[in-house]
């Protein structure tokens, strides 16, 4: 228990440590800290990304989609010095941004549980999209809603987070407290469930003190058996305590936050928990989400894994994380600000080509080459092929996603692409009706290109722009041009090139 206090105190102190120059914030702060570690390690980073490389990466990271050929060409020919910054601003206002991040947070909060989505009619996703990301609701308010809301799953989006947990095991708050600590503070308290660990920071008292906040939180079916819907309501029972031990040693534990703060007794327990969680003095709250967002943009967290800040996993840039988190708090927990700070940094915008000294992923000398998430891959395929969601044999994105999500390891790592390298996935993209039947279909991308452009050179360029979001290199031109020209009027050769690019690592990875 004392250790827990000490821990929070140390973290709080470091977060509030007076910096040499507090005026350096956001992107400048990131670049100063990152380049300092390069210097210390005598590493030379990769050169800046070129415009096409940057554009594809920032599209995938912010909107989960690919830029269209005309937008790429427009961006390449734009001479404005701040075109990257204004593109980032623009992307954050697009509906694709709200969609992609709602989907991502939905996965983080409830995993791939289809039942929960169906039962609630996607209310959690809809709330995240329309109320959180489209309106740029501040992160502290978003989390307060997820923790403290009460209501019916179809009507109140945020309650679905706790409904899912309460339905899963009904263990009187254990999974709710564990998950909330893990997701919002990157703190894994659940080990103390069965015993005080001799070396651990948390005791069973600490653990059940946290559990007590959720001990009265329950969910119940609203509809009778005869009704078709299965709606659930999240509510708080008037009584219920957290307890552990058996027989004589069994004891009740009152709500108490990890740093021993007792809750505001006048408030319902979950509301009191939310207040303690999101208060400025709790440094873990901001650090956790800043690190999570960092990992989304850089391919790995400053602390990795992102959900465990125990001293087992050392931060690569502790001061940067502390200061960026404090900066984020000073900017009112503004998630769009955080994305801008990251995406506008030179550190984010370095090339993914490895530097000659081979670089260091941990020190971010080059952009990470990482598999697309299932959501990014599904959207990229539809974008490249020119298939509208809900059309043709693609039927809908949900079908495609289900296939990609199959056998996806850890749902909580859903914001990271981790699923490259399965044979069924390779077979599907190599031979499956979707995507293969769509390459040559009328009114899809390739068909439009062949109708609009006649010169093989132009056609090839448009295919490259559509699939890889860049122009072909001279080498690629000299290889593919004779091939498509030999194909004559038939479009087979163009389909082949399209197929090759669509199956390449360059397409299936974010880099």
């Amino acid at each position: 228990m004392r250790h827990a206090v000490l821990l929070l105190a140390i973290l709080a102190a470091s977060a509030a440590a007076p910096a040499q120059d507090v005026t350096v914030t956001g992107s400048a702060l990131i670049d100063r800290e990152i380049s300092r570690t390069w210097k210390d390690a005598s590493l030379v980073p990769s050169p800046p990304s070129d415009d096409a490389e940057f554009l594809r990466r920032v599209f995938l990271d912010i909107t989960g989609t690919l830029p269209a050929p005309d937008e790429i060409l427009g961006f390449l020919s734009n001479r404005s010095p701040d075109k990257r910054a204004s593109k980032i601003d623009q992307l954050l206002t697009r509906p694709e941004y709200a969609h992609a991040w709602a989907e991502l947070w939905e996965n983080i909060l409830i995993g791939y549980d289809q039942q929960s989505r169906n039962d609630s009619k996607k209310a959690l996703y809809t709330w995240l999209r329309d109320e959180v990301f489209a309106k740029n609701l501040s992160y502290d308010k978003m989390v307060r809603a997820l923790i403290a809301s009460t209501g019916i799953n179809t009507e109140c989006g945020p309650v679905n987070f706790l409904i899912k947990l309460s339905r899963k095991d009904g263990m009187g708050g254990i999974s709710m407290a564990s998950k909330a600590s893990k997701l919002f503070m990157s703190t894994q308290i659940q080990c103390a469930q069965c015993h005080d660990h001799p070396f651990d920071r948390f005791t069973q008292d600490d653990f059940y003190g946290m559990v007590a906040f959720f001990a009265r939180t329950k969910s119940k079916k609203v509809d009778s058996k005869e009704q078709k819907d299965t709606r659930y309501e999240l509510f708080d029972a008037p009584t219920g305590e957290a307890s552990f031990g058996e027989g004589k040693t069994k004891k009740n534990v009152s709500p108490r936050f990890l740093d021993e703060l007792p809750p505001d007794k006048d408030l319902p327990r979950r509301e009191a928990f939310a207040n303690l969680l999101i208060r400025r003095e709790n440094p873990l709250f901001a650090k956790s989400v800043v690190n999570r967002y960092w990992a989304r943009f850089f391919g790995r967290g400053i602390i990795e894994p992102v959900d465990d800040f125990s001293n087992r996993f050392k931060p690569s840039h502790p001061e940067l994380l502390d200061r960026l988190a404090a900066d984020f708090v000073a900017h009112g927990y503004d998630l769009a600000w955080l994305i801008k700070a990251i995406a506008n940094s030179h550190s984010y915008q370095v090339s993914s080509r490895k530097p000659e000294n081979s670089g260091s992923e941990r020190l971010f000398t080059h952009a990470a080459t990482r598999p697309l998430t299932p959501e990014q891959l599904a959207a990229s395929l539809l974008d490249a092929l020119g298939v509208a969601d809900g059309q043709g044999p693609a039927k809908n994105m949900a079908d495609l996603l289900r296939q990609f999500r199959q056998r996806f390891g850890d749902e909580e790592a859903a914001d990271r692409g981790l699923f490259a390298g399965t044979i069924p996935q390779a077979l599907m993209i190599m031979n499956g009706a979707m995507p293969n039947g769509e390459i040559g279909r009328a009114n899809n991308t390739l068909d439009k290109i062949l109708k609009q452009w006649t010169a093989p050179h132009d056609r090839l360029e448009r295919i490259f722009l559509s699939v890889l979001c860049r122009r072909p290199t001279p080498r690629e031109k000299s290889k593919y041009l004779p091939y498509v020209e030999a194909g004559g009027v038939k479009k087979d050769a163009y389909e082949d090139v399209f197929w090759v690019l669509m199956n390449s690592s360059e397409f299936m990875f974010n880099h």
Partner: protein
Amino acid sequence: MAHDCKDCEGTRRFGLTRRDMLRGSLGGFLGFAFARQTEVFGAAMPDLLLPQDTTTKAAKSVIVVWLGGGPATIDMWDPKEGRENGGPTKQIETAVKGQYFSEHLPTLAKEAEHLSVIRSMVSREGSHERGRYLLHTGYVPTGTVMHPSMGSITAMELGSKKLDLPNFIALGNTTDGAGFLPPEFNPFVVDAGGAKRPNAPAAKGAAAGGDSIKINNVAYPQGVDKNRFRERMKFLQEQEAEFEKDHASDEVTKHKNAYEKADRLMHTPLLDAFDLSKEKPELQKAYGEDKFGRSCLLARRLVERGVAFIEVSLGGWDTHQDNFNKVSNNCKQLDPGLGTLIRDLHDKRMLDKTLVVCMGEFGRTPKINGNNGRDHYPRAWSAMIAGGGVQGGRIVGSTDKDGVEVKDRPVTVPDLFATVYSAVGVDPKKKNVSPLGRPIALSDNGVAVKELLS
């Protein structure tokens, strides 16, 4: 550290004790401590302190028949005729004198000398999700680590890297996967939905030899022939080589390997396993021409071709209502399919190299509920095990006369897993390293059922 808390990842939080560092079996482990997740993925760690069982009797392949929903084993392997809890289910004597199965398993009863039943399975997970996880991985779900399933472990331990077929094939439903092991040990799921149902119009009167079970996406896309496919693959390889020059990473390599394996799978002659028409019509009929029977037959053909692990699913066992009709109907598929599989493996002298297990996520309440159904019951249930590495004709443990409690010789799920791993010659105490650096044994402290091992 020897830390066995079931609900946490133990060493993940606390690092290692000095003793761990000194243990030979953990040599080099410390280096993993702060390594990237991907770098420790699935790093197998043979436990040098515990030499592997090198019995020559070990099976080389495993077939698991998965009864999804939780089968009423009281109406199958452990009937209670004459007791109120037994319901209308009658018992029949098996080929082993004095042993009785339920009337729903006549084919299996004839094979009783080749199979053994554990009537004293005990577990504590009564929800489908948690029970399924437990019976696939041998571990209680913790939320902090995804354990690899029995199929993935078997594929890793017994599978041949040279085989062009996947080493873990799931016929029917998707199943638990590789967990923290590398993705190559995930199940290759084959949708067996194309096989004929017993009462489908097309099957009526048709000669034996129904549709073959189709493996998806191994044929060229429409309009593409072999030459064109080779042309595409040649271009793709060049494209990959160019990208890899300055983007080399583990993940890019995995992507490339998956494409190579997919290419090999598409072109291997071993795919003829899926052509069930090559089997004698009588044999096809004996297996049953429903999806399950054909999957059992396919499982045998896959074992012949060297596949290490096959899971065959048969669902519909969640019999909260109308239990007795449903069990009877399900057994009309299960009994001929599984019974013929054991017979056929025996006839072809493959049974001593193939381990066959039949189980679901739990049993069902001995007390019959108001809907003539049975509810979830993990406290006392049965599993079947047969073939290589284990003895046939045995009944292990028993339940009381009403099927409520295990009377003697309780066998836990980890014990069952330890038995399976021992039967295939793999040390159940062998450890794999989780992504966060914790060594996790193949079986969760299970002890093999010694009297079953051959």
